């Protein structure tokens, strides 16, 4: 996996409270302002200087806005629209919020009990919830209203009932993930009863999810109750909400469109303000969105070098990495992950890049072809010379043209690195056609040939398999076959054997060795295992905290490591028959680290 940021002298930054985060989101703040204004108006309806919303005035019916002292005009019975609008908003808000509260109460209760109890209780409750969800949403509400009879309260119940499943499902999911956590076990061991645990331990942790679900559904429920009223199934005269205003005005749509348009605008603004606010609340409470972990990576890592090095290098070996610096940006600040790394590699050679996870070796490897996910990744300095030309200075298309052609990659875990939905043969063939103008059939034939090269038996038949149908070792051979598709000069193998068991690991390493010898490949091998380095590499570079601390011939480094960190890595390779003395040998090397 990609090694993540190395700690840098942290810029002390105050963690902002949820409230501050919400207000920093301009859209959410605007939503809150709009919603707040509407709520205040609706609450103040009794004290505002408004005419009685129910007084009819036949001579002044259907007045347009601003006529006869009616700011928004009058409806088909001559009633003041502004006054009816504000009173109607009050009704719609109360009904929407009550429906949300009811759905949240019962839905959460079902979810909590089902998720905590599991077993038969869970199955029965969730099957019932599934049944409710099997109805087209609004039709069930209509059936319920049909049975209970039209009316605002019945519409409220109907909308609440059809929304119970959303809460039940969401809350159940979170409850399941919490019920086995240590603090719940601790409460259980301390003799607390199930009900007490559910309400004092589980509920507080589930609360954010309930709040998110409420804030994202309340707008929806206001829309739906307004809809039922619009159809004449909700609010009945003389009570009137925004939906029934709209429904009654519809008969005069052509003669007095304002009477229909105005209540609709109000519903729209109300629901939009709630949606804006709801999205803001979700963003604040969902840590994944805050960390920017859902940014779309660009085709090529962003390069932002203060002082670009010369674009070409004379008499250079096939790969030269010169003072490469890569970091992760969080907007303004860049946390460095690779600091001034330099190494060279020639045809037929193998360089091992070794270090613990987080040392920056994977980021180094991915930087060569601009494959570090960006944002947040950014290359801040240095050069990568392939055949003497700096690829970081090249155009995007040029760099993409080198990938898989001149320089190819073998990644760590082939189950996640192969596409799960395509047959492995197609995936290899695709690597061929990406760079060579050959037909589909020729590419497939080449793919089968490559699979034979990497030692897959019955290649023609196995080519039709999906990645999940193969073993780990076979999948990694597919990864290698894909890397060989265009006879590259350089192969970067990023922990190619880490996900495999020891015997398979040996065979994969032998395969890489043979290929290097037969084809004169330059091999950059990323690993954390000095045993692998000793077996395969001519030279080794040791990385720690984003920098290379020691570099040299493998034999020299193994015989006389100069850096303490190197000594520790070497000591971590177990040898045959030394199990009893292993810890004695290793302990002194780590003494200073612990002090």
């Amino acid at each position: 996996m990609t090694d993540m940021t190395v700690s840098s002298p942290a810029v002390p930054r105050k963690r902002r409270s949820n409230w501050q985060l919400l207000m920093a989101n301009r859209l959410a703040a605007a939503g809150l302002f709009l919603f707040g204004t509407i709520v205040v108006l609706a609450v103040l309806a009794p004290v505002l200087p408004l005419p009685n919303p129910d007084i009819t005035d036949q001579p002044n019916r259907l007045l347009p806005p601003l006529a006869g002292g009616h700011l928004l005009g009058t409806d088909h019975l001559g009633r003041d629209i502004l006054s009816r609008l504000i009173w109607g908003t009050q009704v719609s808000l109360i009904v929407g919020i009550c429906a949300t509260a009811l759905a949240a109460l019962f839905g959460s209760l079902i979810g909590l009990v089902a998720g905590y109890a599991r077993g038969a209780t869970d199955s029965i409750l969730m099957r019932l919830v599934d049944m409710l969800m099997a109805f087209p949403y609004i039709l069930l509400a209509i059936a319920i209203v049909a049975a209970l009879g039209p009316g605002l309260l019945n519409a409220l119940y109907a909308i609440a009932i059809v929304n119970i499943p959303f809460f039940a499902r969401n809350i159940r999911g979170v409850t399941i993930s919490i019920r086995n956590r240590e603090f719940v076990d601790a409460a259980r061991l301390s003799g607390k009863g199930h009900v007490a645990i559910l309400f004092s331990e589980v509920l507080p942790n589930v609360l954010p999810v309930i709040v998110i679900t409420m804030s994202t559904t309340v707008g929806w429920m206001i829309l739906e109750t307004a809809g039922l009223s619009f159809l004449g199934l909700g609010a009945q005269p003389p009570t009137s909400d925004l939906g029934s205003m709209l429904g009654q005005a519809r008969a005069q749509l052509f003669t007095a469109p304002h009477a229909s348009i105005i209540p609709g605008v109000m519903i729209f603004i109300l629901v939009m303000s709630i949606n804006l606010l709801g999205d803001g609340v979700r963003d604040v409470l969902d840590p994944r969105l805050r960390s920017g972990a859902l940014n779309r990576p660009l085709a090529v890592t962003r390069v932002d070098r203060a002082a670009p090095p010369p674009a070409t290098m004379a008499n250079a070996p096939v790969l030269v990495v010169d003072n490469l610096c890569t970091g992760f940006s969080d907007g303004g600040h860049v946390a460095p992950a690779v600091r001034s790394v330099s190494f060279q590699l020639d045809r037929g050679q193998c360089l091992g890049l070794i270090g613990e996870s987080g040392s920056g070796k994977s980021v180094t490897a991915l930087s060569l072809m601009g494959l570090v996910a960006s944002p947040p990744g950014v290359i801040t300095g240095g050069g990568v010379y392939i055949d003497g030309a700096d690829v970081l200075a090249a155009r995007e298309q040029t760099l993409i043209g080198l990938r898989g052609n001149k320089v190819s990659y073998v990644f760590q875990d082939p189950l996640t690195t192969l596409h799960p939905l395509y047959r492995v043969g197609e995936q290899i063939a695709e690597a061929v056609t990406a760079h060579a103008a050959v037909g589909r059939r020729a590419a497939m034939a080449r793919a089968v040939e490559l699979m034979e090269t990497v030692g897959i038996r019955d290649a023609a038949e196995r080519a039709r398999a999906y990645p999940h149908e193969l073993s780990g070792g076979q999948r990694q051979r597919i990864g290698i076959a894909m890397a060989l598709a265009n006879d590259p000069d350089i192969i970067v193998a990023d922990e190619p054997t880490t996900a495999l068991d020891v015997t398979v690991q040996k065979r994969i390493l032998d395969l890489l060795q043979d290929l290097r010898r037969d084809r004169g490949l330059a091999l950059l091998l990323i690993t954390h295992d000095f045993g692998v380095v000793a077996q395969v590499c001519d030279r080794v570079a040791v990385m720690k905290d984003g920098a290379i601390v020691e570099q040299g011939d493998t034999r020299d480094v193994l015989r006389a490591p100069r850096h303490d960190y190197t000594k520790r890595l070497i000591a971590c390779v177990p040898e045959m028959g030394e199990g009893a003395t292993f810890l004695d040998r290793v302990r002194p090397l780590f003494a200073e680290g612990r002090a």
Partner: protein
Amino acid sequence: MGSYIAKRVLAAIPVILGLSIIVFLVMKLIPGDPAQALLGSYATPDNVARINRALGLDRSWPEQYFIWVGNLLQGDFGRSYILNRPVLDEVLERFGATLILAGASLVICSVLGILAGTASAVRQFGWTDRIVTFFVLIGISMPAFWLGLLFILLFAVQWRLLPASGMYAVYGGGDLLDLLRHLILPAGTLAIVATGVVARLTRAAMLEVLRQDFVRTARAKGLDERAVIWRHAFRAALVSVIPVLGIQAGFVLGGAVYIETVFQWPGLGQMLVKAVSTRDLLLVQGGVLVAATVYVLVNLLADVAQATLDPRLKA
């Protein structure tokens, strides 16, 4: 594949049974004594008991349920006493119109929503993304029945481009072109909210997939960005978008109730609203059951479509 489909079909049977139980129970919620209601002020205890026996209401609930289901299976959904014709005839006649409307909206929302969501994810934080996000917000906040009225005012009254109501022109219409002209406004209105939802979820799915390791592999192969996005990321995101489309099918089937009322579309929704206000409960019951069953079948199709795209699900 065949055994997978068989498994899904078998799993749908208890769901449809469950639907019938819920509809049955909802009808039992009705306050008051049906016999009393039927007889009105002429009710004598003798007559009430006689009617109850005739309607089978003196039996236990489970007995009543099984008799009812038995009748349903023979195609007997009861008789609408308002329309004075068999419920099933009326429901099926209306349902065709609803299927045309809901089907058209489903196609519109799938195509537009998936394209907009993908474009929005690919150009994350760019102008495309902002515009799509803006329209999605408006779409999901808009009461569809109101939007329908606005469209009528604009397209039918103001510009006289499209008809405001009905399914066919009263004079001289009746061909496919006429149907399409009548379909544009209602189907477009009905699709707006669903398009917003699909676009939103497609965007999220694409962003999720674009960070996966196999997309990095596609890049490492040297594929150009178009192939990376469409052949690799999009294909994988589609697998998680398909169930969303299944859910939207339920949404447009339900939302059709509003749209049919606004546009006078002679479908099931309009029938249901009338039936609720005339308390024609058997008609409501039959209409809801048929629509819900079709919804279950559409979701079954979505499951099968998902499995054809994702070989891992067939196992």
